[in-house]
């Protein structure tokens, strides 16, 4: 956008606004499409406020006045912010890289507890390769998956789940061993790797998050405060903590079960 955003009577996260809550599906699709087009949060809030004020004045529903939210977002022809898009991909890549690290790392823990090396047979390596293939295809799958989470995400989840099942069965089958690794080194090394990836994720989420919140330029209704700093802190901390927490939880279960 060439012009700077105007002075604002107040600032409030759009999700707190009654209008957005009433027209949740339309507003959610509209915001998602603009996010996918790398439009900065405050600009999205500005466009959503236009929809709200127009619908308030005309008494129309957003779908009647503006049509399909995805088509309408496409017609707005915004300038994107490539640095934000890069941030989204950094978070996605760090999150995706944690998945194989966690799976391999926690599978090393029971072997460590039994004092054995971590071994992989042909079937397990093939399943790990399938998982890596799915993760590497995320750049292509992310956009359609966000638009159609059940249609794309469902089969993808099924493939991953099937791969994990086959890998578990392969571990019991009498297949030739193709890799033998020291279990404590793998378990500790991959936990450190997960920590580093979580830190990268946290740093990217914390960077400029306040400036990228989808805030409305409209006055907050009486009794509805602006987004609190506490809420914003959780937005950055919770996703980053998820990987290390899952690793520790599954590793503890693996150790106890060994």
């Amino acid at each position: 956008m060439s012009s700077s955003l105007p002075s604002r009577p107040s600032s409030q996260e759009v999700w707190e606004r009654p209008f957005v809550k009433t027209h949740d599906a339309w507003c959610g699709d509209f915001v998602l499409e603009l996010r996918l087009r790398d439009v900065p949060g405050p600009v999205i809030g500005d466009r959503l406020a236009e929809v709200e004020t127009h619908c308030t004045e005309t008494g129309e529903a957003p779908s009647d006045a503006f049509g399909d939210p995805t088509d309408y977002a496409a017609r707005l022809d915004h300038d994107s912010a490539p640095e934000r898009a890069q941030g989204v991909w950094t978070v996605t890549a760090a999150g995706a890289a944690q998945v194989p690290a966690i799976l391999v790392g926690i599978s090393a823990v029971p072997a460590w507890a039994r004092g054995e090396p971590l071994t992989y047979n042909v079937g397990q390596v093939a399943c790990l390769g399938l998982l890596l293939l799915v993760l590497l295809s995320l750049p292509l799958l992310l956009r359609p998956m966000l638009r159609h989470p059940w249609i794309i995400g469902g089969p993808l989840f099924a493939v991953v789940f099937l791969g994990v099942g086959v890998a578990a069965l392969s571990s019991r089958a009498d297949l030739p061993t193709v890799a033998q690794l020291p279990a404590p080194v793998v378990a500790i090394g991959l936990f450190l790797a997960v920590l580093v990836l979580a830190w990268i994720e946290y740093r990217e989420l914390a960077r400029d998050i306040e400036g990228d919140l989808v805030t409305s330029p409209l006055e907050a209704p009486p009794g509805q405060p602006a987004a609190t700093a506490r809420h914003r802190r959780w937005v950055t901390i919770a996703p980053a903590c998820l990987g290390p927490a899952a690793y520790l939880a599954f590793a503890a279960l693996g150790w106890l079960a060994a």
Partner: protein
Amino acid sequence: MELCVLRVMAEGPTYGYAIAAELAAAGFGDIKGGTLYPLLARLEKNGLVTVEWRPGEGGPGRKYFTLTAAGRDQLDAGLAQWQVFSATVSDHLSPTGTDQMASPAGSRTYSRSTT
């Protein structure tokens, strides 16, 4: 449509719903938000208008659009072009000259090319 919206703004700062209402009153029919706001966004992006959110009277607030100097120049240039275009088309369509003489008492016939 862009020229008509700029013309409405020439009267002073105004907001989306008021623009749609004025165009409807002028006979343009019901202008949907999905048509009007992308146009306004384009005017904003091209620096033809500035925008300002003002607290609403009985509502949550309104986004006011004000013509910039570039917007006013665009309006003047557009009006001049439209007047030339309109005069040319009117002259061409008006029943004068040999056409009128060839057709008896207002019963002009128009042929349409099939190519």
